[in-house]
């Protein structure tokens, strides 16, 4: 069953066009890697999907047209976004960050802190005082607390130490294996993406230039389209 469908998506920042025809589909339970060089429109695509910026073209989630919906209504349909740069609520504690966003479902405070043990130890600590890795865990945990059907991770491991990156990737793998949640991943780590993602869509200059199974993302494809 197709959960997210994006057809010929166009978007712009004011007068500056940013997307010129993005196409992608994501089935329930599938993990899709959204790849591309810097500035090719990956984050803009995510913002358009989440209705954070206006866009034209086909955009539906579970058969529902997203175009008429405000951002919060889209999130309530089941899109959980972990935005680029973590962006936790700095004045709230770890626990408060998680409770503020919570909705009923299988992801509870206990389950999130079990997935990310460092958060359990820092429950009463303000988010602003956490390390970058812990803030990233908190951002993922906050999105999970909304009990989404689709988790969108925008550069979830960017700028983190290798050991923390490994923890994040282990958590993403666990989410996939234990819950079968659909995941849209933006990342530049080809090796880790290959282990988790089922399919890939590559953007170039604001439009889809390649799509296929992750196993077909060879070194040549990565070099030609992603520059890695």
């Amino acid at each position, binding site marked *: 069953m197709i959960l997210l469908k994006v057809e010929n998506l166009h978007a712009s920042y004011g007068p500056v066009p940013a997307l010129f025809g993005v196409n992608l589909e994501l089935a329930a339970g599938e993990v899709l890697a959204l790849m591309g060089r810097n500035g090719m429109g990956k984050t803009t695509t995510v913002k358009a999907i*989440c209705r954070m910026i206006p866009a034209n073209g086909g955009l539906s989630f579970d058969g529902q047209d997203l175009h008429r919906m405000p951002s919060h209504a889209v999130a309530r349909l089941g899109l959980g976004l972990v935005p680029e740069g973590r962006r936790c609520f700095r004045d709230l504690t770890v626990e408060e960050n998680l409770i503020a966003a919570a909705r009923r479902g299988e992801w509870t405070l206990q389950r999130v802190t079990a997935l990310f043990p460092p958060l359990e130890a820092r429950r009463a600590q303000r988010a602003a005082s956490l390390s970058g890795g812990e803030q990233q865990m908190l951002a993922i945990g906050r999105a999970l607390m*909304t009990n989404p059907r689709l988790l969108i991770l925008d550069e979830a491991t960017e700028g983190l130490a290798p050991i923390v990156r490994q923890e994040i990737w282990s958590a993403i793998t666990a989410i996939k294996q234990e819950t079968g949640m659909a995941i849209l991943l933006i990342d530049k780590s080809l090796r880790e993406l290959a282990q988790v993602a089922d399919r890939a869509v590559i953007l170039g200059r604001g439009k889809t230039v390649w799509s296929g199974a992750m196993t077909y993302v060879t070194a040549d494809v990565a070099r030609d389209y992603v520059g890695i």
Partner: protein
Amino acid sequence: MIAERWINWIVLLGFVVLPLWALFADEPFTITLATRAVILALAAVGLNIALGIGGLVSLGHAVFFGLGGYAMGILAHHAQTYAPLELGPLVIEGTKSMPIIWVTALVTSALAALVIGLLSLRTTGVYFIMITLAFGQMFFFFSISWSAYGGEDGLSIYVRNDFPGLNTLQPIQFFGLCLAVLCLALGIHSRLRTSPFGLALNAARQAPERVETVGLNPMRLKLLAFVISGALTGLSGALFADLNRFVSPTMFSWQLSGELIVLIIIGGVGRLMGPVIGAALFVALEHLLGGLTEFWLVWLGVILLLIVLFARGGIIGILTGKAGPNV
């Protein structure tokens, strides 16, 4: 440094001990001063929900204070003149019953907050401040021209309204009633602050666009906070009118809205007892310095200046060593 909860209990204890001392020392005026502080604290506790948790700098909260006051004044006026209030086909008898007056004040203020919030919360920052100020001025000038209820001269009430089982003419009993209402409001604020709603509101203050991405509507959160805040401030207006047995357009004045903000800043923005400490200090300075010089507000200004410059967490921030939230 002192833990905040100890400061909270000490302040509350002070509000119990001082009037009791005044009662035994036969100082009814001190009890009246304490009552005034408690009622102003209640108004500021209401505003602190919008300002301290939601980050809404409202310069129009006097609207709700005035509406609460006029709800009391109009109902009591019709009770003492035995003439019903006629609103077209609707005829309402006046009343001296405090619970009925309180409910009227709460509902009227909440409805006004709903309408004002729906319009003003579409803006942010200085525009929000200006719109709320504009609403305040509208109500102020309307009350000045409302000759049926005293216009510019205000409306005197010759009786103290009744509360079942209490003699509200006794200053200590009226004080106890006001303190009980304040404690209830503090309980609401405390529960609200740590509830999922309060946390989401706090998050919306910090980053509204991020709150949207987790499925929360920041406009709805802020509107609800504004309505609760307005209702509590309205209730305090009814009590204030009962204390003075007088209502006037000054209850709607923007200076009063400003004073409420000052009380919160002095005590500590977003802190549970911040408004209570601010109100106590305000009334104490008004009484102590007001007797020495008519320019006592200059000294309050100096205190405010020092706090804003050097102690952003207010008096509670100084005592606990912890700054408050960034508003």
